[in-house]
């Protein structure tokens, strides 16, 4: 596996996104709702980076910003070392082909009136493949890669099962030979017996083509299987980021610890471990009105007076293991 500067295909520096909160008759801007707070990461070639957080933490907004669907409010996004904002139009086009997306909602991500063949052909036409036979050859190759029979080419999305549609969606991504895949909960809508098939397929494809994957997920078990590096997000901020092994073996942030404790597991069932949540009761704070000091303190079981006063600075507790907590060293 190559390491060093060259292997980083995409990086983010301090990306943030906020929305104005408008009030009153004239819709005056009364404040800012900050949904993504200074997220930085590097995605390496052939690796999987997982972004884990509960609903409402800002994962989807971050993805939308990275895809260019929404404009970021701050920070920089570098694709192969080039700033995406200062790129030429041609470079942007190239990037859009090299960065592909897999959605959770497999039915919604297909045009209902386009057959599987048309859906797979579209990105090829857009990428400038003029010859029809060449396009067909590519389609057949990618179908083979995802293990979908060519018989399905004439079908429409609603005629496929969830697992088959997710395969078709992955095939559509692969058709333009991407370098990076953003996968937003790619298997959580699938049936249990099909999840393993898709997880294995993603790992095979990654090994074969050195794909870089940014996986957004909430299921820590799935993430453990695929990810090399894991980022835990809470209220728009990355509270802990570490190599996968360390997240499961040596989680330092109380939120990560709470997530691991709350995650169901067969083994916990066998050792008669009950469900427990190591969080103060309550809800996610309103992003327009975040708590003072540490963002997590209102739910943290370890919070002290210090946490209300000062926001913790990111601390590197071991190489590449960064924690946003005053007590990360303990």
């Amino acid at each position: 596996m190559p390491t060093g500067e060259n292997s980083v295909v995409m990086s983010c520096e301090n990306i943030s996104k906020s929305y104005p909160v408008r009030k009153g008759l004239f819709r005056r801007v009364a404040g800012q709702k900050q949904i993504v707070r200074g997220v930085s990461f590097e995605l390496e070639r052939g690796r999987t980076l997982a972004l884990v957080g509960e609903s409402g933490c800002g994962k989807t907004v971050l993805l939308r910003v990275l895809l260019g669907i929404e404009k970021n409010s701050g920070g920089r996004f570098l694709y192969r070392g080039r700033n995406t904002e200062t790129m030429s139009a041609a470079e942007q086009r190239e990037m859009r082909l090299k960065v592909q997306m897999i959605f959770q909602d497999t039915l919604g991500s297909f045009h209902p009136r386009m057959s599987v063949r048309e859906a797979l052909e579209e990105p090829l036409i857009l990428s400038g493949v003029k010859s029809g036979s060449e396009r067909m050859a590519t389609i057949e190759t990618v179908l083979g890669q995802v293990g979908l029979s060519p018989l399905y080419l004439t079908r429409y999305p609603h005629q496929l099962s969830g697992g088959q549609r997710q395969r078709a969606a992955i095939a559509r991504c692969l058709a333009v030979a991407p370098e990076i895949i953003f996968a937003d909960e790619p298997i959580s809508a699938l049936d249990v017996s099909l999840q393993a098939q898709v997880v294995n397929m993603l790992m095979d494809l990654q090994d074969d083509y050195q794909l870089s994957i940014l996986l957004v997920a909430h299921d820590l078990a799935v993430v453990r299987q695929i990810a090399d590096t894991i980022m835990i997000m809470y209220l728009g901020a990355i509270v802990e980021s570490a190599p996968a092994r360390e997240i499961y073996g040596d989680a330092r942030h109380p939120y990560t610890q709470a997530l691991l404790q709350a995650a169901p597991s067969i083994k916990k069932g066998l050792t008669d471990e009950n469900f427990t949540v190591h969080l103060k009761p309550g809800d996610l704070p309103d992003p327009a009105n975040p708590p003072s000091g540490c963002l997590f303190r209102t739910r943290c079981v370890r919070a002290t007076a210090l946490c209300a006063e000062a926001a913790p600075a990111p601390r590197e507790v071991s190489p590449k293991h960064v924690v946003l907590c005053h007590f990360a060293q303990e």
Partner: protein
Amino acid sequence: MSVAPVPISRAAAAADEVILRTDELRTYFKAGRAGVVRAVEGVNFSLRRGKVLGIIGESGSGKSVTARSILRIIEPPGYIAGGRVLFKGEDILQIPEKRMRTIRGNEISMIFQDPTTSLNPYMTIGGQLTEAYNSHTPSGSEKARDEAVRVLKLVGINNGGEIMKKYPCQFSAGFRQRIFIAMSMILYPDVLIADEPTTSLGITIQAEIIEALSEVQRQTGISIIIITHDFGVAAQFSDDIFVMYAGRCVEFSPKRDLLTRPAHPYTIGLIRSVPLLEERKTRRLKSIPGFPPDMSALPPGCPFAERCEFVGEPCREEMPELRAVSGAHLCACHYPQQYNVSEDTELGVF
């Protein structure tokens, strides 16, 4: 391995007192001209008093239809085609609808997957809780209010008086699900059926809800059926586990036996294929090949035969019966397997 068939009733009688039992329950849906989808085909399980039964299955396996059949809330084109549902020894499929209404909510209650739609948005929490109480035991608003506060405390909501003046939209999904659990408990039913109660919620909220359910169970001794597709949830919360596939029972057993020595190839396949929270020996998951069958065109015989690695001749012809493999451990397979999770070198975590 050959096992002599043991009648269900005898195997079940060996266990504790059974409060609810289904016997060859069948629920079909009319589909098109003369077509029938056999959503639930001969389901047998028993719920022990004061215990938690987990029903595991994929979407379309018939778990929700089973739950709805117990309460007789199947809507056309669906209908209960046969079998019995024995509640405290009485077949509640045979009693008049009027009496069934006194059982629903009062003796058997149910909570649903989506907490955002199961409460009435135009009514205060208090209004809904007291309505639920008064509908079965009309006893005035004062008494109902006290009961509501008490039952909210049961699910860990201590400021019930305040909460009751508010509307559902003022609370998060997790909190609403807790309120709904309180509402389903207000008449202290004997059985609570929870149909995917945490599926749309986050991990920590899921744990909070199940914690609340455990607490309710500990304090009231209610018997619970939890329907889930998550093996981990069933493993941690249940005493017994019932696995469904394509509307059929596959395996039914006390939790430990089912998790450590599953006998049905489908259950084994599931345990080997689910991503684990603990580190497994192999990076690749052991996946079950193929797809779940099309329910409107099920082949004869075992519905899992197509995907089964141990398939033999009888599998494609005859649906295997649920037989005991040991004690209360029942399995519907012509070739029950001798498998031990702790010896599985690919998993290496148990």
